């Protein structure tokens, strides 16, 4: 296997080009962009929001990119531990469920958590706060959502609870860890 220098996809040795982003094997890694934007949390796809519409600036405030102490049990803190965009690796995000009951993850801008990874589907997964428990639900994504257990990534079919310490893979190139 070889890992694509651009998008992080694992490719079979027989492939000369990455099957997701198309770049040639051994391509030069991309330099981080000058302006480093975190994955965006936007208002457009608020699903079952408990507090009705909010403006974009407040949405951005609810997703700070720097670690912050958890002020409420309704904030789920995640860390990005693998991403095709090197500048995102190591970043932490606070997902605020006092505003959003459901947070959508995907490649397209209409998601609350937009991930720049070609192997992630346009609408990939949802994280939901349900009966005081966090669950993740795969939206029949093309490349799947996985949870690391017993030494392997296991595909999530439907939905399952997530807990602190869980490592979740989205598509082929993005891995996040639930840290708080």
């Amino acid at each position, binding site marked *: 296997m070889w890992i694509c220098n*651009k*998008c992080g996809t694992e490719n*079979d040795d*027989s492939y*000369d*080009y990455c*099957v*997701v*982003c*198309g*770049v*040639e094997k051994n*391509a*030069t890694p*991309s*330099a981080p*962009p000058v302006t480093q934007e975190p994955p965006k949390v936007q208002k457009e796809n608020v699903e079952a929001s408990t507090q009705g519409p909010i403006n974009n600036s407040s949405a951005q405030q609810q997703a700070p990119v720097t670690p912050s102490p958890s002020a409420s049990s309704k904030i789920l803190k995640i860390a990005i531990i693998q991403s*095709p*965009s090197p500048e995102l690796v190591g970043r932490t995000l606070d997902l605020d469920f006092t505003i959003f009951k459901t947070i959508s993850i995907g*490649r*397209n*801008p209409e998601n609350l958590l937009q991930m*720049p*990874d*070609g*192997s992630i*589907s346009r609408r990939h997964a949802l994280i939901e706060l349900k009966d005081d428990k966090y669950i993740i639900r795969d939206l029949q994504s*093309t*490349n799947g959502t996985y949870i690391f257990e017993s030494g392997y990534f296991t595909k999530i079919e439907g939905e399952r609870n997530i807990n602190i310490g869980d490592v979740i893979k989205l598509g082929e190139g993005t891995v996040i860890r639930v840290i708080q």
Partner: protein
Amino acid sequence: MMLNIKLDSSNDFSFADSSTRLFFTIKIIGKMEDIRQKKSITGNWLIIVIDQSSSMMGEKLETAKQAAISAINELNPGNYVSIYSFSDDVEIVADHTSLNDVKRLENSIKEISAHGKTALFKTLDFIINKAKPYAEDAGSVTLIMLTDGQPTDMTDIHKYESIAGMAAEYGIKINSIGIGSDYNEEIIKKISDITNGEFYNIVDRSQIGTIFGSYVQQLNKTVATSAVMSVKVREGADFKSYDQNFIQQGDQYLLNVGMISDIPFIITGQVVIPPGPEGPVNIMNISIDYKDENGVSKSDSIDFKITRTNDSRKIFSSTRQDVINAARVKMNIEKFEYLTSVGDITGATKAIGEARKAAEATKNIKLIESTRKLENIVSSASTGKVDKKQIYNETSRIKKKGD
């Protein structure tokens, strides 16, 4: 315009600093309104070639004859048929005949009887040369060839490649049907591949009639004939198709498509774009020349434009996974077919595994079943002894029909 040409690519962007491979699917289809208005074109030529060697004696030959009789009865008037049979030599049953007297044609077909050997090369050479002037000057030629035995006049596959190359140049599409377990699948599959025809391995004799019928249905819904596709690549890009056999002439790639009906004609492949300055580029031009119902020459074309960029986010967010998955299946099927033909079963097993994974990502049930079936055929075979006839039957269908 009577044709729709649709191009889907795996991305609208490529990396400015590295070579990038993009997958594409080109779909050509006769516009449905023309077919609904019954503007289908006649003047096509259907050639049926039946092996009448002694091994065909009995039910096999009778079923083939009945399929040929049904075909000439179902084909729209205004088209032409030729029926040839072969054993020690070629026998002309009907030669570029109109459908004015179907009864007489039927009687001629009924008279075909089994005897002798299998002079396949001599037969194909004769028919291709016979069809050449018509194929060059007028309509589209669809040839269906049925055989059950090893060729007895020529066994050198390169000779067959040579005459198949001529047929492809003239626009003669050779669809081959192998029946039984004794025919040479490598030879007839190669002929079909080179001429962009289909290959079938028949297990159940009743399939013969169904296959003949499917070609007649296509001919009856013809909206364009003599179609030739030309792909011109720019910027030093490298073009490759996984499912059609193009003839390369410099930076131009030609494909004799022949007749076009309401059944989509699909070309799947890749284009490798070298690095270059950021900004938009026209990476290839796809044009198709054809004749309409009045025999008037027409042409349509589309451009494939992409933008080179250093912003990888643009590339990641523009990825079209459905195009990638469909192309990955065909890319690996092509690889699987090749590795099977050269006897590299380990490599073939790996390739079909990759094809199956890509098929699962397409969520196309028929495609998933086909690739799983191929995986089972390879895994259950004893070392080096895979059933190539069965394998090629599946791979040909996946490549040409997409499932």
